[in-house]
């Protein structure tokens, strides 16, 4: 299989030129959302969690920011996204406010789930964001059903469904991919292949080389992308989205990347050989993209500094507000199990 990438220094063995480069505005938006994701998750994992302000689990997508941002950046508002747990960029691009996200992590009543759930287990139907469950891969048949409803109603909307490499071992993943392909529904399946499922490396997860190899068994196109190359991700996603929107059915995109942290904030990833972190640090998606934009004359060192300062302020403000937000009332435990009417 060929790997879609712009840079042969990466894991690309066989790049697929030429890649469509988005507009300058989109490129700068991509940079903003990647950097916002990085900084937000840094604060969550390295500050708020360690300060004891986040009481539950924390899972971040450091090193994988290009995937959610590159694939969601050009979606329409009426398209639907089913994120998984390392796709913070999807929430940000869909317009979930920083304060809502931070209040969610800090278990406040103003969080996206009003304290019922923690971390990125959140959704908002008004933003067409579907909350995932911890049983990874469950969102794959759900995405197939969302696509089915669009097809039944003759809508030209699409669904983006995210998961990791580990999720592709679950039966639900296979059932959902198969159904989506049989029904030819408008779903784009995006795999963050970060090569570890918690502590289990890929070779203990599957006996095929690529996640994308699995697509052939279900009769849908599978494409491998350099997941740390946002231009390649966006190029592949744009084509798959267009294919889905025009009625040609689902695509499976495998984004090769690496999880630059442990599985969660309490996991030091001691089982990952250090040279793997070094290898992937050199391929950091944000650094690469900043170099690209600089070479293209779209940014400068001082502009990047200004952008970072702006992002820091946005997050500082949101943290301040979220920290002052109230916790839910204990009795809220009993609410919203069922529809309670108006």
């Amino acid at each position, binding site marked *: 299989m060929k790997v879609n990438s712009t840079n042969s220094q990466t894991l690309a063995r066989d790049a697929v030129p030429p890649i469509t480069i988005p507009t300058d505005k989109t490129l700068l938006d991509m940079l903003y959302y990647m950097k916002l994701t990085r900084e937000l998750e840094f604060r969550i994992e390295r500050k708020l969690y360690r300060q004891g302000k986040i009481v539950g689990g924390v899972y971040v997508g450091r090193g994988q920011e290009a995937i959610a941002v590159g694939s969601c950046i050009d979606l329409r508002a009426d398209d639907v996204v089913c994120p998984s747990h390392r796709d913070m960029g999807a929430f940000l691009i869909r317009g979930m406010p920083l304060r809502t996200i931070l209040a969610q992590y800090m278990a406040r009543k103003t969080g*996206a789930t009003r304290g019922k759930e923690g971390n990125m287990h959140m959704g908002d*139907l008004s933003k067409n964001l579907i909350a995932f469950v911890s049983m990874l891969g469950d969102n794959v*048949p*759900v995405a*197939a*059903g969302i696509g*089915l409803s669009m*097809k039944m109603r003759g809508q030209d909307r699409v669904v983006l469904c995210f998961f990791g490499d580990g999720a592709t071992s679950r039966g639900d993943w296979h059932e959902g991919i198969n159904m989506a392909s049989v029904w030819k529904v408008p779903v784009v399946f995006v795999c963050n292949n970060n090569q570890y499922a918690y502590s289990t490396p890929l070779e203990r997860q599957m006996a095929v080389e690529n996640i994308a190899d699995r697509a052939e068994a279900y009769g849908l196109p599978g494409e491998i992308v350099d997941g740390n190359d946002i231009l390649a991700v966006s190029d592949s996603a744009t084509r798959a989205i267009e294919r889905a929107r025009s009625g040609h059915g689902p695509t499976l995109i495998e984004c090769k990347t690496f999880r630059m942290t442990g599985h969660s904030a309490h996991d030091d990833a001691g089982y990952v050989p250090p040279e793997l972190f070094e290898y992937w640090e050199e391929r950091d998606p944000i650094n690469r993209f900043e170099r690209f934009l600089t070479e293209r004359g779209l940014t400068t060192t001082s502009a990047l500094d200004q952008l970072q300062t702006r992002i820091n302020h946005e997050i500082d403000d949101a943290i301040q507000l979220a920290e002052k937000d109230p916790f839910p009332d204990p009795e809220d435990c009993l609410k919203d199990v069922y529809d309670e009417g108006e």
Partner: protein
Amino acid sequence: MALTTYVEAIRQGIWEEMEKDERVFVLGEDVGIYGGAFKVTAGMLERFGEWRIIDTPISESGIVGAAIGAALMGMRPVAEMQFADFISCAFDQITNFAAKCRYRWGAGVPIVVRGPSGGGVHGGPFHSQNPEMYYVHTPGLKVVCPATAYDAKGLIKAAIRDPDPVIYFEHKFLYRRVKEELPSDDFVVPIGKAAIRRTGSDMTVVTYGAMVYIALEAAKELEKEGIDLEILDLRSLLPFDKEAVLDSVRKTNKVILLHEDTRIGGFAGELAAIISEEAFEYLDGPIRRITAPDTPVPYSPPLEEFFLPKASDIVRVARELYAY
């Protein structure tokens, strides 16, 4: 007026809801051209087309997952499990995804998952089970078990219109054995309301599903001995009609809890606890349970007959209880 069977009542209920509301659709294994293994969806493909009566791969979890996705987009899916036994394959989607969406992030999941449950037809361990309690133990779900054709129709319509996920267990033994005249107008049976099937004064039998008929048979026998049973058909298990149970027990002061499901962790245990907590001072005898034994449902007729609660079991227990 013609009599309508239980299975036809379900079919009519789904059909009418599909005519009335274009968001309603059916998905499941062999529901289309074949009309369903038990013909619940017979004729629907011709009327509604292949995108509202959807034949699916053999993927129960996928079927329910897809139903959830469509429901989140405003549709009203009715997912068929070819046998209720196979709902185990969809356990995760039902209990983790569907049941918890509203609580977690305020998103209602108005799906119906329905399928034929119950024994008495020599179906063996995988075509005879009564899996209701797995779902009764899951907050966020509703669970119904109709016993009559009227309830079968009224509850499927209520389930389809309900804003929350409803698990609808129809009893396959009743499909063509139970029939009655149905009103021609549009009616629903509210979820969570029990029905008194026989008014009596000596003791209450609380039951549901096919066991309603076993209880009625026993009541006829016991009537000859001057023992007067009240029979309460729960119809819904989650939520269940607690007041109806307590009212009847407070009246008759004795109670038999009867179900076709196995004993440990069965609904009878829950009812016994509630009666003990809330009507203890009204009881004039021990709370008695009649259930299937704690085994899989066996195939061979003598084994299955042994497994299923019988009218003679009720007669025996009622006599013992009457003596208090």
